[in-house]
């Protein structure tokens, strides 16, 4: 899942640095993720993992790091599909 998230960040995050240079826990906003790019990333994550982020997850914290995104996706993807 981490690799898929990294690929989507690379494609939609419009970061000024390569995603490979970031740790999973690194702050994506501090690394240059803009609010607009975060929205594009959110929509791409929904498409890829076939989930819909609920209202409670539509905030900065959910997309603050690769680990934070993974935690959200794991919560949303049915256990059987994630396995």
């Amino acid at each position, binding site marked *: 899942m981490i690799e898929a998230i990294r690929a989507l960040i690379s494609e939609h995050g419009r970061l000024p640095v390569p995603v490979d240079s970031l740790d999973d826990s690194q702050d994506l906003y501090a690394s240059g993720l*803009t*609010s607009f790019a*975060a*929205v594009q990333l*959110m929509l791409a994550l929904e498409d890829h993992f076939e989930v819909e982020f609920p209202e409670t997850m539509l*905030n*900065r914290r959910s997309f603050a790091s690769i680990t934070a995104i993974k935690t959200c996706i794991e919560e949303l993807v049915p256990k059987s599909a994630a396995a």
Partner: protein
Amino acid sequence: MCMVCGNFLDSLFTKGLLIDMGVEGLYGRSGIFEDVVERLTALITRIGKDGDAEVIRFPPGMNRKDFERSGYLKGFPQLAGTIHSFEGGDKEHATLLEKLHANVDWTDSQEITDVALMPAACYPLYPVVARRGALPKTGGLYDIYSYCFRHEPSRDPGRMQMFRQREYVRIGTPEQVVAFRELWLQRAQEMIALLEMPFALEVANDPFFGRAGRMMAASQRDQELKFELLIRIDSPENKPTACISFNYHQDHFGANWGIKNEEGATAHTACVGFGMERCTLALFKTHGLDVDLWPHGVRDALWG
């Protein structure tokens, strides 16, 4: 508030302060209403005069290409307005008139023009500043005033479709624009206190469209990028109305338009926006519909 009819908008019509045009949110203004608007904007000028802002007045329409590039349609497609006009010859003109006479849709011969209605008074400023080249070390400070359009018909007099925004816009380093916003957060509170109106200051968000918009709004709130000064007017939810807003755009407009500081870094921007009709309505709501009966302190501040 009118004690007989109970509805603030109706009482404004009855008193003749606003003039009904048959469309929600589109009103004529009386001489007395306009006098208050002018006195308010003069008061804002007095409060802001030490900044030596560059005065720029744009018409209520902007270059459609600039509008498209501004990003407004990403966040607020539901509020945007564009100007369309007839394109065609005699044959198409005859068809238009036939359809008009038959009371059917005549607008298929309308084509989009190069003009979009002003979404917010500061929107045309950023490309103008960008075209001038890098900012001086002191950055820029601009005094902006324009009619704006937002497509949100409502019976709430505080939610007009066409209304005026008076703005001061600061463009420069992050430190310069944050200091500017702090200054105006103070000044605006002092101004409204001078006008003897109860108010609240709150963290706010813009009405971004759709699910993506909810994320934008949450992000805006998390970072406290927008504050609003709220005064009670007459919203349907009986909530106070945002009359002045204080917005820190970070490098959103600077990056979009390529506005650079003296040393070549992307400029940050912030603005304080006064909703002129809302501030005026708040005065009428708070102090009554007869300006001669307003408190002495308020009259002195405006007409003194």
